C-alpha cells in the first residue's frame, strides 16, 4: 500500500486549468520533490494535498483512506511554509508544541515531544525566545520542529529554503537530508531549485503547465531526461540543445558543415529527420591535438572562471555551446577549439513533440 496516492488530480480556476491530471504514487519513506518554474502548479498540488485548496476532480489517499474533503487538521500531515509561518506572539516552545496543544495532548507529553524535536534540530537554547528574536535559519528550524512533533504520515514542504541566504540554504539542505535519513518519513517537497531537488529527493516530479513532464529518480532525471523541457530545466548551466538533421547515418549540425556519427542506438531514425541534440556542458572536455573520437569544433566567445570550474561559451554554426571545464584549462576567448564527449552523453529529442527519441537499449 502506498503512503500517498495522488490520482488524476485536476484543478481549475475558472476557465484556467492549473493542474491537468496528476498521478503520483509514493511509498513510505520516499522524499518526493515537485520541481518546476513559477506557475507550473507545484504549490497548488501541495496545497491540495494539505487541504488548503480543493481539487476540481481526482482523489488523494494517505494510507488506505481518501483525504479529499477532510479538514487539514485531520489529514495526518504537517506542513512547513516558505515564510516559516511562525506565530509571532508565542515562544518557540509554544510554536513547536502548538499542534499538540490544539489536539489537547497532555502538557508533560507535549513538553517531552518539544524537547526531543528541539534536540534533533539543535535549538534547545532558543525555546523561550519569540520568533522575532531568531535568525532566518533558526526560524526555519522552529518551523520544521513544529512539523516534526506531530509525527504525521506525510510531511509537506513549500519552498522552505527560499528565504535563506545561499550559505544557510546549503546548511539547512544538509540538515533536512540528515533528518530524512534519520527519521525515514514520507516527504513531499516543493522547490524551483534543481540543486535542492537533486540532492534531497529519492524521486523528482518535474512539472510544467500543470502536468508532470517526468517522474523519476534524480539520476534518471539528470541522465535520461524524457523531454526537452526537463533537459533544459535540470542542470546549471542547462543542457546544450543544438538543431541537427540526420543524413546518411550522420548528425549534421544546422548552420555548419560539422557532422558527428548517429549513435547506433538511434539507428532506426529515418534520413532527413530534424532533431534536437542535447549534450550537458559538464560532458564536454577540451580535445587534445589530434585526438580521435567524438568532437565538436567551436569558436570560444566567453570564458568565465567560477572557482571550481571554467565555463566556456562557444559558437558552432551560429548555435551556442557551453562547456564546463576544469578550472586550470588553458583557453582564450576567440580561439577555435574542439570539444570532445562520450557517445552516451548524447541525447536526441523530437523538436515538434519535445519528447526524447526512443533509443535501442
Amino acid at each position, binding site marked *: 500500500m502506498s503512503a500517498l496516492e495522488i490520482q488524476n488530480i485536476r484543478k481549475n480556476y475558472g476557465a484556467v486549468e492549473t493542474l491537468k491530471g496528476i498521478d503520483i504514487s509514493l511509498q513510505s519513506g520516499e522524499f518526493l520533490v515537485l520541481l518546476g518554474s513559477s506557475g507550473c502548479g507545484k504549490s497548488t498540488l501541495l496545497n491540495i494535498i*494539505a487541504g488548503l485548496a480543493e481539487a476540481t476532480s481526482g482523489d488523494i489517499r494517505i494510507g488506505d483512506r481518501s483525504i479529499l474533503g477532510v479538514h487539514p487538521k485531520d489529514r495526518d500531515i504537517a*506542513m512547513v*511554509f516558505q515564510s516559516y509561518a511562525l506565530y509571532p506572539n508565542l515562544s518557540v516552545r509554544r510554536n513547536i508544541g502548538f499542534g499538540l496543544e490544539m489536539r489537547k495532548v497532555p502538557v508533560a507529553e507535549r513538553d517531552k515531544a518539544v524537547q526531543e524535536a528541539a534536540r534533533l534540530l539543535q535549538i534547545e537554547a532558543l525555546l523561550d525566545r519569540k520568533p522575532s528574536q531568531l535568525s532566518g535559519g533558526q526560524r526555519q528550524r522552529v518551523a520544521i520542529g*513544529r512539523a516534526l512533533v*506531530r509525527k504525521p504520515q506525510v510531511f509537506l514542504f513549500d519552498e522552505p529554503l527560499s528565504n535563506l541566504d545561499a550559505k544557510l540554504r546549503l546548511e539547512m539542505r544538509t540538515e533536512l537530508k540528515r533528518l530524512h535519513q534519520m527519521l525515514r518519513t514520507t516527504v513531499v517537497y516543493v522547490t524551483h531549485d534543481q540543486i535542492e531537488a537533486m540532492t534531497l529527493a529519492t524521486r523528482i516530479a518535474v512539472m510544467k503547465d500543470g502536468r508532470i513532464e517526468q517522474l523519476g529518480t534524480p539520476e534518471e532525471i539528470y541522465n535520461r531526461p524524457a523531454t526537452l523541457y526537463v533537459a533544459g530545466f535540470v542542470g546549471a548551466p542547462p543542457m546544450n540543445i543544438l538543431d541537427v538533421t540526420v543524413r546518411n547515418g550522420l548528425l549534421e549540425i544546422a548552420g555548419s558543415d560539422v557532422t558527428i556519427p548517429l549513435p547506433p542506438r538511434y539507428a532506426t531514425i529515418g534520413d532527413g529527420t530534424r532533431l534536437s541534440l542535447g549534450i550537458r556542458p559538464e560532458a564536454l572536455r577540451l580535445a587534445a591535438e589530434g585526438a580521435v573520437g567524438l568532437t565538436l569544433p567551436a569558436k570560444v566567445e566567453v570564458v568565465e572562471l567560477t572557482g571550481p570550474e571554467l565555463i566556456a561559451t562557444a559558437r558552432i554554426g551560429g548555435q551556442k555551446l557551453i562547456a564546463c571545464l576544469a578550472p586550470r584549462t588553458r583557453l582564450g576567448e576567440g580561439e577555435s577549439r574542439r570539444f570532445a564527449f562520450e557517445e552516451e552523453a548524447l541525447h536526441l529529442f523530437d523538436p515538434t513533440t519535445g519528447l526524447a527519441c526512443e533509443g535501442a537499449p
Partner: protein
Amino acid sequence: MSGSWMTTRAWLLMLPLLVVMVSVIGWPLVDTVRLSFTDAKLVGTEGNFVGFDNYAKMLSGSNFQRTLVTTTWFAVISVAAEMVLGVLAALLLNQQFRGRTLLRALMILPWALPTVVNATLWRLIYNPEYGALNAALTQIGLLDAYRSWLGEPNTALAALIVADCWKNFPLVALIALAALQAVPRDITAASMVDGAGPLARFRFVILPYLVGPLLVALVLRTIEAFKVFDIIWVMTRGGPANSTRTLSILVYQEAFSFQRAGSGASLALIVTLLVTVLAVAYAALVRKAAGSTA
C-alpha cells in the same frame, strides 16, 4: 551646508505654521488659563483674580461629579460596543462572499455622514409619535405603547450610545479590516494544519495582528467619546433632567448659557487635563503593544 544653516532654514520654513498655531491655539489656551483664575463673566467684566477658587468649586460640585460619571459611562460603553461591533464587522467583511465590495462601501456610510445629520436621523428614529423604532417594536409585539426614548432619563443615555455606536463603529471596522488583511495567509494556513479551530485561530493567530491597530482606534475613540458634544447637543441638549449631560455640554452651559467665563474656563482645562492623561496612558499602551509584536 552647515548644520546651523539647516536648523535656521528649518525654523524659517516652519515659521508660518508656528504663527498660525500660536495665534489660533496658543493664545486662546493661555487666555483660557488666565480666565480660569478669574471670576470673569462672558460679557461686561474682565473679572478679578480668584486663585484656585473656580477649580475647587467645580471639582467639589455635584454637577461636575455627576457629569463625569455620565461622560465615563458614555465613553466606556460606546467605545467598548464600537470595538466589539467593529471587529465582528471586519471579520465578516474579510470573508470571501458575493457582494463583499458593495457591503464594504456601504459600511463606511454612517461614518461618512456629518454628525449633525446622523443625530437628526436618530432623533427621527426615536421620535415618540412617528419614530421607526417605536413602530418596529410595537409591530413585533415587544412594546405595548410608543415611548419617548430621548425624553426619559433612564433610556436617553442608552439611546444616545446606540446612535454614537452606529456612526463610529465603521471606523473601528475599517482599521480592523486593514489589520486583518495584513495577517499572512501562511500563518492562517499553518494554524489550520495545526488543528486550531476558529476561536483558537482568532486568539492565537489573528488577535496579535489586531492588537496594535485596535489600540490606536481605542485611543482615538475614547478621547473623542470623552469630548463628545455635537451628537448630544442635537439630540437631547444634555437632558432630560441632565441625564445625558457630558463634560463638554457642562463646559458649554457654564461658559455660554450661564455666561460664567471664569469657571467655564477652569472646567474646560480640567477636561483637557483628563483627556491628556487618557492620551498619555493609551500612548504608553500602544508603545507596549507595538514592542510585544515587533
